[in-house]
C-alpha cells in the first residue's frame, strides 16, 4: 500500500513539491504593562526553518514540547500569522494572499487537532460539524450536503446513521475519526495532523494510524504529521524532520534517520524511547538538564548546553544545515569537522 503510494509518487510527481517552506519565522511578543503595554522581548518559537513536502508524501515533525512543531503546523495554514518567511503551496506564495483568497485555499489545506474532546463543538451535531466546511466553501447544501457527510462517516469507519448525534455520545477514538472526517470533507490535498493520536489509548491509536494510512492511499493526500512519539512518527512518515528550540536540526528518510542519525540530539531522542522488549536494552544517551527557554535561546548552536559532544565552536557559531547524503540534512558542527563520521554512540 505504502509502496503503491511510493511508486505513484515516483511515476507521476517525482519532483512535484506541494509545499515549500522557506526561512519561516514566528516570534511571539512578550509585553509588559497593561495600559501602555510595550514589547520587552520575543519568544522565538520558530526561527528560520526550511523544508519541502512532496506530493503524496508524509513528513513527520518531531521534537519535545516547546520546540515549535505545532507553531510551525499552524503557521503553514496561517492559523497564526508568521513573522517572516515564505510558504509556497502548489507554487503560490500563500503569505501574499488576502483573507478571502486564503479562505478559498483552505479547502485544500486542512488540519486535524490533538484533543478530540476540545476540538469539537459540544452543541453541534456531528453532521453539522463535518458539514460546516461545505457551507463555508459553498460546496454543497441540503440533501447533497447530508449525503456527502454520510459518505465521509462511512469512509472514516463510523455509522452514517449517527449523523444527528452529539460529540459527547462518542468515545475518544470515534471523536478523532469525526475530526478526520471534518478535515476531509472539502477534498483537501494537504493535511496537517497535529498530534492526532497522542490523546488515544494504544489499541485505538493503531486504528487511527491505520485509518490515516488508508486515506492517504485512497485520496492521494499529503501529510505533515506532528507528534512527539518517535515510534509513531517513524511508522507513518516517509521523511522525518527533528526540531529543537525553534530550529530544524536534522531531516532525513525515516528509516535512515533511525539507523544513522547524525545529530547528537536526534541520537539522544531515539535512544531515550523505551523499547517494549528485553533483548533491546541499548545504552541510553541521557541528556542533562531541560530544554532552555526560547525567550533567551543559547548562543551558537541552541543544543550546546545539553550536547554530550559540545565543542568551542558550538558556543559561538550557529551551525548551518548541510547535506550529508541524498535526502539527509544535518545542522551540527561535528558533521563539518569529521565529514559525517559521527557514529551512533
Amino acid at each position, binding site marked *: 500500500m505504502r509502496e503503491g503510494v511510493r511508486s505513484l509518487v515516483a511515476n507521476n510527481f517525482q519532483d512535484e513539491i506541494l509545499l515549500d517552506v522557506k526561512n519561516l519565522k514566528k516570534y511571539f511578543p512578550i509585553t509588559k504593562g497593561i495600559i501602555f503595554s510595550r514589547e520587552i522581548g520575543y519568544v522565538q518559537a520558530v526561527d528560520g526553518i526550511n523544508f519541502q513536502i512532496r506530493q503524496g508524501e508524509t513528513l513527520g515533525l518531531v521534537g519535545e514540547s516547546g520546540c515549535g512543531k505545532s507553531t510551525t503546523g499552524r503557521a503553514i495554514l496561517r492559523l497564526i500569522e508568521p513573522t517572516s518567511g515564505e510558504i509556497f503551496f502548489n507554487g503560490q506564495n500563500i503569505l501574499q494572499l488576502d483573507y478571502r483568497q486564503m479562505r478559498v485555499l483552505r479547502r485544500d489545506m486542512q488540519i486535524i487537532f490533538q484533543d478530540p474532546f476540545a476540538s469539537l463543538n459540544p452543541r453541534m451535531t456531528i453532521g453539522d460539524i463535518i458539514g460546516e466546511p461545505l457551507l463555508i466553501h459553498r460546496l454543497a447544501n441540503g440533501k447533497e450536503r447530508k449525503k456527502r457527510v454520510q459518505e465521509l462517516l462511512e469512509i472514516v469507519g463510523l455509522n452514517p446513521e449517527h449523523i444527528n448525534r452529539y460529540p459527547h455520545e462518542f468515545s475518544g477514538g470515534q471523536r478523532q475519526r469525526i475530526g478526520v472526517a471534518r478535515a476531509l470533507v472539502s477534498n483537501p490535498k494537504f493535511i496537517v495532523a497535529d498530534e492526532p493520536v497522542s490523546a488515544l489509548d*494504544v489499541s485505538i491509536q493503531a*486504528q487511527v494510524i491505520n485509518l490515516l494510512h488508508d486515506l492517504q492511499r485512497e485520496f492521494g493526500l499529503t501529510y505533515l504529521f506532528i507528534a512527539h512519539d518517535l515510534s509513531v512518527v517513524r511508522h507513518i512518515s516517509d521523511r522525518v524532520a527533528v526540531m529543537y528550540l525553534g530550529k530544524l536540526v536534522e531531516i532525513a528518510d525515516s528509516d535512515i534517520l533511525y539507523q544513522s542519525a547524525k545529530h547528537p540530539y536526534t541520537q539522544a531522542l531515539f535512544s*531515550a524511547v523505551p523499547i517494549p522488549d528485553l533483548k533491546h536494552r541499548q545504552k541510553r544517551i*541521557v541528556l542533562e538538564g*531541560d530544554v532552555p527557554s526560547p525567550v533567551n535561546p543559547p548562543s551558537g548552536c541552541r543544543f550546546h548546553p545539553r550536547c554530550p559532544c559540545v565543542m568551542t565552536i558550538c558556543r559561538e557559531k550557529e551551525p548551518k544545515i548541510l547535506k550529508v547524503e541524498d535526502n539527509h540534512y544535518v545542522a551540527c558542527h561535528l558533521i563539518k569537522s569529521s565529514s559525517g563520521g559521527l557514529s551512533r554512540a
Partner: protein
Amino acid sequence: MLLTVENLKTYFYTEEGIVKAVDGISFILPPGGTLGIVGESGSGKSVTALSIMRLVPSPGRIIGGELLFDGQRLMEKTEKEMREIRGNRISMIFQDPMTSLNPVLTVGEQVVETIMLHQKLPRRKAWLKAVEILELVKIPRARERLKDYPHQFSGGMRQRVMIAIALACHPRLLIADEPTTSLDVTIQAQIIDLMKELKKELNMAIILITHNLGLVAELCQKVLVMYAGDLMEYTDIGTIFRGSKHPYTWGLLQSLPRLDRPRSRRLEQIEGQPPSLIKLPPGCPFHPRCQYVKAECRQEKPELIEVSSDHLVSCWLYQ
C-alpha cells in the same frame, strides 16, 4: 511478602449504575520487587493503586478482598492508622507534577511539611533533611531551590520534587501512577534512571502504573495486564514480551509501532473499543474484541489459570 492483594473489588455507586472499576484483582509483591500494572484508560489500574492506599474517592468503595501489607490487614485499619502508613511506609507519586504541588507554597515548605508531619522532627532539622533528599533526587543547588515556588521548576524538576516528597520517610513501597506520562521523552529517561537508582539505594518495592509497555520493560520484574477492571495476565517481564498467552496482551504488543523492528505497512489493530464499565459484557470482558472468541467466552468469566510457574492467565483458551 511485602504486599498481598487478594480478590480486590472496588465499585463506584453512581447514579447511572454500578461501575465495576476493579473486579477481582490478586497479586503479590516481595520486598524490593517491582511490579508494572499495564492497561488502557479505564482499565482500573489507578483505582487499584488508590485501593491499596485506601484512598478510593466517593462514591467508590472497596467491597471485597484482602489487602495484606507487611503482614497487616489494611482493610481493618482505622483512618488514623492508615494515615500513619501512608507516606511513612507506602508512598505515591502521581501523573501530573503540575497540579500535585501547591502553587502558593514554596517547594521547601511542602517538603518540610511532609517530613515534620511524618517524622515528628523540629522545623530546623526538617529543613536539613529536605536539602538532603532534594540532593538525593539530583536537584542542582538544592538549598537555594527549596525557596522557589513550583512554577519556577520545569516539569521534570517538579516530578523530582514529588519523588523527593514521596521518599522523604523511606517508604517500603512506592506506587508511581503514570509518573512520566506528561514529560518529554528525554526527561522521562532521566526520571526512569533516577527511579532505578533510588530503588537500588533504598531497597524499596515499586508498583509502576503505566500504559507504556516500554517503561515496564525498563523498570519492572513482574507485569500485570488489566482490562476493564479485570486481570488478564500476570507474569514476569521476559515472558510478557516473548511468551505471553492472553489474546489481549498479544493485541497490545502488536498494535504498537516499534522502533526496533522494520517498518510494517499496517499495524495490527484490536477492533472495537473497551466496554462501558457499567454495562460489562457477560463472560470475559474482552470477548467482543477477541479474535479467538469461543462460545464459553460469551457466557462465563474464565478462571485465573497458572499456565506455568508464576504465569497466570485468565482466558478460555487454556481452561
